């Protein structure tokens, strides 16, 4: 599980933001919640989670790759180009998260 204090805080606040922000947005509209509103809220929460969790995962992966990449560069500068590719790979996780969030948000 997440042991690092900072990582716990970041993950917790992202989770809360993903849950609370859509609810506040809806509450501000001042409408009484109906079945359609509940579905909308659930979708917003799901899309927020898909985006935030994938972004956190990509950030974690990039941090680890970055640390190892810095170590490799210090000893073998010729491996620089390979490291840039490796460093960019986790971005795919965010892109997938974005696509899933988009699909959830626009589903009929």
């Amino acid at each position: 599980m997440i042991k690092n204090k900072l990582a716990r805080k970041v993950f917790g606040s992202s989770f809360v933001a993903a849950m609370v922000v859509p609810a506040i947005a809806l509450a501000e509209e001042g409408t009484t919640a109906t079945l359609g509103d509940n579905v909308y809220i659930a979708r917003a929460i799901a899309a927020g989670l898909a985006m935030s969790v994938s972004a956190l995962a990509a950030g974690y992966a990039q941090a680890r790759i970055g640390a190892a990449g810095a170590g490799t560069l210090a000893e073998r500068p010729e491996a620089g180009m390979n490291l840039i590719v490796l460093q960019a790979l986790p971005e795919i996780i965010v892109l997938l998260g974005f696509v899933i969030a988009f699909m959830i948000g626009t589903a009929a």
Partner: protein
Amino acid sequence: MSAVATLQRKSNPGRDYGYSNARVRGMRARLFTQAYLDDLMASKDISDVIQVLMQTEYGPDLEERLLHGRTAQQVDEALKDNMVRKFRKVLGLANDEAYGLMIVLLGRWDLFNVKTILRGIHMSLSHEEIEDSLIAVGQLSHVDMVELAKQPSVKALVDTLATWELPYAVPLRAEMAHYNEDGDLSVLELALDKFYTAWADKSLRCRRSNAKLARRFLGVQVDTINLLTCLRLLNADVEAEEVNRFYLPGGLHVKEELFSDLASMSDVDEVYERLKRTPYGRPVEAVAIKYVEHGSVSVFERALEDYLMRRAFAAGQGEPLGVGIIIGYMWAKANEVTNLRIIVKGVSVGMPVERIKEELIIV
């Protein structure tokens, strides 16, 4: 260990091995290949060897040492300097967990150094002569060891160790009375060995996977020492009750019972049979014919050294974010320096290439 004799390094808390292991892997990639060593062995003389080594990472160390003369002795010193520098670098990179584990494993070098100083003082050698044999890759720095080597007597050495609050003073003090009685240095050396293996085994008792790996590796080292002691005792006239006195605790497969069994056997064939059920059966059996030809225990010593080196390399090929990478590199580096020293000595005295090859430890 004491505050006096500790390596100066910044604390690196946590257990993140990403950065340090990447650097160590980079350093490992620069270790010499077999083909490179073959070329080096084919050098005509020591000048050729120096010329080739100057193009490598040994260059800066050679430059410094060669100011004192282009001799095999100076090249040897430069190789040792490089090893010390690399070990210090790796220890500086390691996080606190890896540093703690490596200090325990590298304690064998401290032990080696303390024993070397002890022998030197016992034999009334000058401190310059003792210094030539020291390698400061453990926790004791070169300055600490020079100070120890300058002590006028074994008693003064033990007192200095005690003043510096080094743990090696404890077993030495306990056995000083015996040493003073008959002047037998082996009593002190055995006490030191026993103290180190027991201390290291205790220090590495932990549930973490890295500590377990380090303990397994320490266990193999202790096993090889115990096995060699058994093989030597085969030809020695030692009472059965006396045998267990030489047993070192902390082994992985060779426990006290097996040790006394092995030591009580009459010939090497029986030892093979008894060792078949342990991982040491195969390496010992592989050199059996060679032993019959040479009749020297050094054949087994060599086979067990090779096995230990294989285990060190295997440790570096497991968990990529663990201490195994560091263990693997340090032992591979020590092995490379040992091989280079053999080549330098061999080439300088005109030894045939085949003879040098036989002496190398290549895994």
